[in-house]
């Protein structure tokens, strides 16, 4: 357990320090998220769409695209100078590498949400929901869900013959939709102003939906941990 924690911490710190110095992923995803929110705000005005309806869509789309961007970039740091092979040569278990990369992605998404959620509230002139701690918890669960699949498949970028990393987005998006979809539903149960009022009315219990999201996270994190070794080695 000690070795696991030491190795986990070493890889996590390395990735965070690398990103803070490189400043590649975080600024890009924050700007992307803000652009998405801004564009949808304009669209809601132009098409006279109820802004509370659009707010939830803006948050969901920004979260999905920025979330995918951070996954796709999480192995870019290892591609430089063939560092992934240096990492694989060490005695560290590939499962540990997966969990630490997953944690890095979750932290990046959390930082992203700290900025984007207030941007959405501000752009769409919404007030802070009453059950905001529950909202934070739900967003965190969503981060884990998206990162679990994203971390697993982002390692394929290094072996893909296509220069378009958008391929990873195309591959990941169908898998992530259930997780983000559930988030949308849960938003329907938590902050009233952040919900849409369309046909997709939430009929379940909030606790059921959260339990479901936890199950999603557990299943895909476990699957990713088990299967990561097959994906990352040539």
């Amino acid at each position: 357990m000690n070795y696991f924690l030491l190795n986990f911490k070493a890889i996590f710190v390395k990735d965070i320090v690398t990103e803070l110095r490189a400043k590649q992923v975080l600024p890009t995803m924050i700007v992307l998220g803000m652009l998405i929110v801004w564009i949808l705000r304009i669209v809601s005005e132009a098409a006279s769409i109820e802004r509370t309806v659009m707010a939830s869509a803006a948050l969901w789309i920004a979260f999905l695209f920025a979330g995918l961007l951070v996954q796709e970039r999480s192995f870019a740091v290892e591609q430089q100078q063939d560092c992934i092979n240096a990492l694989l040569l060490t005695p560290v278990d590939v499962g540990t590498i997966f969990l630490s990369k997953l944690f890095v992605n979750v932290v990046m998404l959390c930082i992203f949400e700290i900025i984007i959620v207030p941007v959405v509230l501000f752009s769409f002139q919404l007030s802070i929901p009453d059950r905001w701690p529950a909202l934070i918890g739900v967003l965190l669960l969503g981060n884990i869900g998206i990162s679990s699949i994203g971390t697993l498949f982002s390692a394929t970028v290094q072996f893909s013959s296509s220069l378009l990393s958008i391929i990873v987005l195309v591959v990941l998006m169908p898998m992530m939709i259930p997780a983000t979809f559930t988030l949308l539903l849960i938003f329907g149960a938590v902050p009233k102003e952040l919900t849409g009022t369309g046909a997709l009315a939430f009929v379940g219990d909030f606790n059921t939906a959260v339990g479901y999201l936890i199950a999603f996270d557990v299943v895909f994190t476990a699957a990713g941990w088990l299967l990561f070794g097959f994906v990352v080695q040539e």
Partner: protein
Amino acid sequence: MRRILLLITFALSLVSTWMAFTVGQVVPVEKNITFEKNIVYVHVPSAICSILCFLVLLVAGISYLVTNKPIWDYIGAASAEAALVFSTVLNAAGSIFSRPFWNTWWTPSPRLISSAILWFLCVAYLILRANIQNPRYRARICAVFGIIAFLDVPIIFITARLMTDQHIANVEFESACQRASFGLSILSVALLAALLIWLKTDILKSKAIFEKEFT
């Protein structure tokens, strides 16, 4: 063997189609409309078969990772293509049905979204496969994708239960003939799926032998 299977599939399909249009006419609970209601004999079996193809994809994926034998990779690729075929039929049949019934080609109801995600998963598998050149690595990553995709399938359908749904909950079968024709149509589509997977696996195997991908 394959010819026998082809003949049986063809015969069953003919019989189930004939039964669907004659003795097995289905009356939906909500409305009484013309021939579109018989879409259920195509729509539902396609849904069942696309899920079965995902199951084959799962088994092929796990088997490849355990045994490293290329045949499992071919079976996986073939079942992904078959899943694409049946999920296309599923979505198309659903559209054809929903137009006269709900006056729309598609609506974002939970089950329809689930069906669409299934279709996208198949397409994503094929895109992933097309973008990796190294055959061993391609086989491995597609096996992993197949396993993850199958884990996604029940999750997609459970998600549907959390929401209200315009989709018809159940089709009521009034007679044994209807139940029989429904059973036959499922059987014929399942046999067709098996045939498609078998054929495609053979094609991929022959292609690989020809290209000597694996020594």
